[in-house]
């Protein structure tokens, strides 16, 4: 497997008033197959734009995305997405949502049934096959979203703040689930998050991005994700490096936010 290469991506949005926003500038990354990379950064640093480019929803103004030795030009089932919320299909029940990907390929329900049942069991929803989406809690809905994405067996899973709308306790449980799924399936995962803790706990690699223009600021390689697989994440937080790294990243993002504020005030 060739993995995922992000080669010198730049993204420039033209504004209606004639100006422009440099959302991304010269972002280059190589992500190995099976890596879990979390992306952090203050708002406006272009992390969602980067994810949309990798997903194929946006074409970069410069650079290219290469997955398994071929260039990415649009969305494809090899790159699955998990959104924050509201991306499930309310007119289908849990089972139908999960089998959406196979259905689109023309796989018969009978053939995909076993896989769907297995995935629903993996995410802990074995008793909810026939439930309607609006009958599920926010955490359960995200479990369905994960199962739906996995049902398509993508090479890369792109997660755009998948746990952002959940309450703290549900979020912790879901973080463990994401780690376990990552280890079990060996998928490449790019996870965008606002939460420094989540980025630390889940990211084998952690990317801190800086705004204006959006670029890679710093990259970490962290041991916590591997420690967290099958373990209590609270134990992982007791690791000697955990708090130190957390403080360092918080400080970094804090400074970036300060800088943005300062610049906005100057220009105002």
């Amino acid at each position: 497997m060739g993995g995922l290469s992000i080669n010198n991506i730049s993204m420039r949005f033209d504004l209606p008033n004639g100006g422009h926003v440099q959302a991304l500038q010269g972002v280059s990354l190589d992500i190995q197959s099976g890596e879990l990379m979390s992306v952090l950064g203050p708002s406006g640093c272009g992390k969602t734009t980067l994810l949309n480019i990798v997903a194929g929803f946006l074409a970069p103004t410069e650079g290219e995305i290469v997955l398994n030795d071929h260039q990415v030009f649009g969305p494809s089932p090899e790159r699955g997405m998990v959104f924050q919320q509201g991306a499930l299909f309310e007119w289908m029940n849990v089972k139908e949502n999960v089998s959406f990907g196979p259905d689109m390929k023309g796989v018969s329900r009978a053939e995909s049934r076993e896989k769907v049942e297995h995935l629903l069991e993996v995410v802990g929803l074995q008793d909810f096959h026939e439930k309607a989406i609006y009958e599920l809690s926010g955490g359960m809905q995200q479990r369905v979203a994960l199962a739906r994405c996995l049902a398509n067996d993508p090479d890369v899973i792109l997660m755009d703040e998948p746990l952002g709308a959940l309450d703290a306790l549900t979020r912790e449980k879901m973080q463990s689930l994401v780690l376990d799924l990552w280890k079990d399936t060996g998928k490449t995962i790019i996870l965008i998050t606002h939460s420094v803790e989540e980025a630390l706990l889940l990211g084998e690699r952690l990317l801190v991005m800086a705004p204006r223009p959006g670029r890679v600021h710093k990259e970490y390689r962290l041991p916590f994700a591997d420690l967290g697989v099958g373990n209590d994440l609270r134990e992982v937080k007791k690791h000697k490096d955990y708090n130190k790294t957390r403080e360092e990243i918080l400080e970094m993002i804090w400074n970036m936010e300060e800088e943005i504020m300062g610049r906005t005030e100057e220009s105002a």
Partner: protein
Amino acid sequence: MIGLLVIVLYVGAFFGSFFLARMAFKSAFEKKGFNKLKTVTFGDESAITANRVASVISVITVFWLWVAFTNSAIPLPKFPGPFSGDMNFTYTAQLEDGSTDDATVTMRVYREDIQLTLDEEGNPGREPDEAEVEPGDGFAKNDTLTVARYGFKVVNVWQNDDVSKADGSSIIALNGQPVEPGDKIKVPEGTIGLTDKGTPTFEPAVGLRMARLYLPAPEVVFQRFIWLNKEGYQGYTLLEHTRYSLQRVLLGFIIGALVGIPIGYAMGLTSWSRGWFDPIVEFMRPVPPLALIPLIIIWFGIGEVGKVVLLFLAALWIMIIAARSGVSGVAITKVHAAYSLGASKWQILSKVIVPNSLPDIFTGARVAMGVCWGTVVAAELVAANVGLGKMIVTASKFQLTDIIIVGIIVIGVIGFAIEVGMRKLENWLIPWKGKV
């Protein structure tokens, strides 16, 4: 005057029945279920449910007001009605030489709707004959006449007198009371008086109830309803009138939806379609369908085609806009999710956009059905051979108020049934609406 009284009574009934019902039906005023545990409900709309006791009393009140202000046979408290029966008044005629003579006028007051009533054998009622009276003595003779309730009669007392007005006879008193031309005297049975030229007049008392022409009694309307179903009006029974109107609405609505929904989708999905249809839709949308009736009649005549075309136009713009907003209401994350799960454009349309737009389309369909129903009645008012609107407008030309009221009630009930049916269908087809 009566209108004001009705409003006062209605407002009084609203407040009065509240206090009475609260004493009589305690349980209907208790908070139920979870609301029982809420300490504040004022301002919490979710805690407000319709008090069914109020609904029942409300309907009864309207019905009672209807009975109380009409000449109904239903035994409920009623307001004083018009005078009916025989009455007398006397007049005093004076000649130029100063000699006077008294005579009596007997007025027989009969039901104004006597010809519309039927006896047991089904024969219509006839106006009654005048009461028989002796002519009496003197130069002024006793008179006898008939007058309808709510009517007015000028009594030419001289027609049987020995001396006519031209011969110098004039009326100087009524019921012994001296009067001048133009005067009026109230008596229990009505008002007697003299015209400006000095001829006696009689106007029977009308009371507070309305004549059949203005508001027929409930049982009259009910009988008319039965009659309309059996005999029909203008060659069609009530059911046929209703069926024609409904058929036009359904046909117009269905064609409007079949054409409008694809156009709406196209406008939501391609720039060319949006650019193409936008000016037409934006121009035609604010034009009320009723304003198109004259043109439709010129183009298509007053037959079925014109009606269906009008209703098609009434439904079309609403359905286009509903479908378009249904497409724009699809969360982009759903579309993105479907693409990254391998859906093709056709699958995006059929599996994501169409189901996701159903709530908007249903809202549009409800509005369109309501507009079509209102438009068909109005179109039939203008020109038609059959239909509920046609039935009403023809009845109004013959002052058959009861048929008009039957028509209005049927129109209201069907409009209500359409709304309820659409809502039921919506709950069944789109259970997720409002829950996400």
